C-alpha cells in the first residue's frame, strides 16, 4: 500500500512542500546568510561578518530597550492572563446558569484582529487620560499598561477555553475520591485540579509566551512605539530597522536572527520544564 501512496507524492507531498520552501524555508536560509551581509535588496549582498550583530547592540540602545520592554510586557501579561483564565475556567465549570453566554462573551475579543484591538484600546485609554489633559503617548507607562490590558483582553478567552477542556477531562472518580477523603476546595485545587490540568498549563504558557513575544500589530496600532520608541516591542523595532532606516537592512536581519533564537530558546525551555512536571504527576 505504501508503494501506491508514494506514487502520488507529486500531489500529496509536493504542493505543500513547495509552498513551504518558497514562503518559509528558503527565505529563512537566505535570511540567516543575509544577517552577515550589507544589502539593500537581496542581490547586492556583500559579506561583512558579524558586523550587523555588533551594530544591533551598539548602534543605539533601541534593540536592548525594546527587548527589555518586551520582557516586561510578556511577564506581566503571561501571569495575569493565565491566572484570570484559570479562575474563569474554574467558575465556568461549576454548572451555573448562563455558562454558555459567559463563555461566548469572554472568547469574543480573541477573534478581533490586532490592528483593530490596538485602535479600540487607544480610544479608551486616550478617553480616560483626556480628563487629565494627557494621551497614551504622553508617558511610556500608559503605553505599557495599555499593552498589558490589551493582551489580557485578547488572550484570556482563548486560554480559558483550553483550561475548561482540561478541567472537564479530569475523571469524576478522582474528584469524588478527593471529596470522600474530605479535601476542601483549596486542597482540591492545588492537589487535584492543578496537577491534572498540567497539560493545559503547558500549552497555555507556550501560547501566551510566544504570542506576547511576537506581538506586533497591537503594538503598531496602539502606540507605534511612542513616545520616543519607549513603548516599542522587539518585533516593531526589527520592522523599523528594516523599513525605517535605509542601509540598515542587514542590522534588521541580524536582530531578527537574535530574536528568533530568544523565542525558540524560551519556548523550548518552557516546554521542557512544564512537560517534566506532567510526567512527574
Amino acid at each position, binding site marked *: 500500500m505504501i508503494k501506491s501512496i508514494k506514487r502520488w507524492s507529486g500531489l500529496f507531498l509536493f504542493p505543500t512542500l513547495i509552498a513551504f520552501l518558497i514562503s518559509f524555508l528558503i*527565505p529563512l536560509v537566505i535570511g540567516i546568510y543575509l544577517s552577515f551581509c550589507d544589502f539593500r535588496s537581496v542581490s547586492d549582498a556583500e559579506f561583512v561578518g558579524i558586523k550587523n550583530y555588533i551594530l544591533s547592540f551598539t548602534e543605539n540602545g533601541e534593540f536592548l530597550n525594546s527587548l527589555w520592554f518586551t520582557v516586561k510586557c510578556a511577564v506581566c501579561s503571561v501571569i495575569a492572563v493565565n491566572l484570570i483564565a484559570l479562575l474563569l475556567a474554574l467558575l465556568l465549570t461549576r454548572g451555573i446558569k448562563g455558562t454558555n453566554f459567559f463563555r461566548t462573551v469572554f472568547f469574543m475579543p480573541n*477573534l478581533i484582529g490586532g490592528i483593530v484591538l490596538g485602535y479600540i484600546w487607544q480610544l*479608551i485609554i*486616550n478617553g480616560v487620560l483626556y480628563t487629565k489633559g494627557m494621551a497614551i503617548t504622553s508617558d511610556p507607562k500608559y503605553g505599557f499598561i495599555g499593552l498589558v490590558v490589551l493582551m489580557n483582553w485578547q488572550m484570556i478567552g482563548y486560554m480559558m477555553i483550553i483550561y475548561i477542556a482540561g478541567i472537564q477531562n479530569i475523571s469524576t472518580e478522582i474528584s469524588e475520591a478527593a471529596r470522600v477523603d474530605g479535601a476542601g476546595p483549596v486542597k482540591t485545587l492545588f492537589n487535584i485540579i492543578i496537577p491534572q490540568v498540567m497539560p493545559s498549563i503547558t500549552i497555555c504558557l507556550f501560547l501566551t509566551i510566544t504570542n506576547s513575544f511576537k506581538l506586533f500589530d497591537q503594538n503598531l496600532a496602539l502606540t507605534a512605539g511612542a513616545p520616543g520608541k519607549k513603548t516599542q516591542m522587539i518585533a516593531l523595532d*526589527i520592522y523599523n530597522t528594516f523599513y525605517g532606516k535605509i542601509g540598515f537592512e542587514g542590522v534588521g536581519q541580524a536582530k*531578527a*536572527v537574535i530574536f528568533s533564537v530568544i523565542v525558540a530558546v524560551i519556548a523550548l525551555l518552557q516546554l521542557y520544564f512544564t512537560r517534566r512536571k506532567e510526567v512527574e504527576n
Partner: protein
Amino acid sequence: MKRMGNAMVFLLLAVMSAIFIAPVFIVLINSFKTKFSISQTPFVLPNKETFSGFINYTSGIKDTGYMTAFMWSLFITVCSVAVIVVFTSMTAWFIVRVKSKITSLIYYLFLFSMIVPFQMVMFTMSKTANVLGLDNPLGIIIIYLGFGAGLSVFMFSGFVKSVPLGIEEAATIDGCNAFNTFWRVVFPILKPTAITVAILNTMWIWNDYLLPYLVIGSDYKTIPIAVQYLKGGYGSIDMGAMMAMLVLSILPVVIFYLTCQKYIIKGVAAGAVKG
C-alpha cells in the same frame, strides 16, 4: 451555602462580561458621534448635538475603500483556508503513512516553522514572492499554504495516527488507488479535524496584517490594511471614520463567531489537546 456561593459567582461573571463587552460597545456608540465629541467625551452616549448619523460610515467606507477591502479579505481567506485544508491533510497522511527519514525531517521542519517569528523571514519572503510573481491575491494563497502548513500538518497528522490502517487496506484491496483511498475513506474520518484546522486558519488569515501588507499591500488592501491606512503618514486621524471602520471590521467577525460558535470553541479546545 452552595446557592449563595453560586449567586456570588454569577454576579462576578456578570461584572466580568460587562467589562469584556464594554470596549466594543464604546466603539459602537462613538461611531455615531461627531469627530470632536469622540476624542473629548468617548464614554458618553450620543445626544442631539453630537449625533452624526451614518456620516462616519459613509466617509470611512469611501476613504478606505472598505467594500473592495472586504472582498479581498474574503477572497484571500476563503481560498487560502480551502487550499490549506485540501493540501495539508494529504501531506499529513503521506508523512504518517510513508515513514522515512525524509518525511520525518519534513515533519520536524513544519513544527519548527511554528516557533520562528515572522520578522525572521518577512524581508526575504516578500522579496522572494516579488521575484516569483506571487505578489498578487492569487499568489498570496501559496504563501499562506506555506505558512499555514506547520500548524495544519501537525494537527492532521496527530489525528491520522488514530485512523485504523485496516480500513485503508480494505479500500486498497477493493481496488482504490491512494487518491481515492484518501478522499473516499480517510478524509471523511478526518472531517472534525478539518473543521478545526479551517477555523484556526480563518481566525489567523482574516486578521493578518503584516504579511499581506508586505506582499500585496501596495496594490491591494485587506481589511486590517485598510484600517491602518486611515492613520496615514503624519497628521491626525479622522476619529469618526476610524470608529466606523472598527465597527465594520468587528461586524463580520462577530457574525462568523455567532454562527459557528460551537465549532470555534470545540476547535480551539481540540487544537490545544493535540499540542
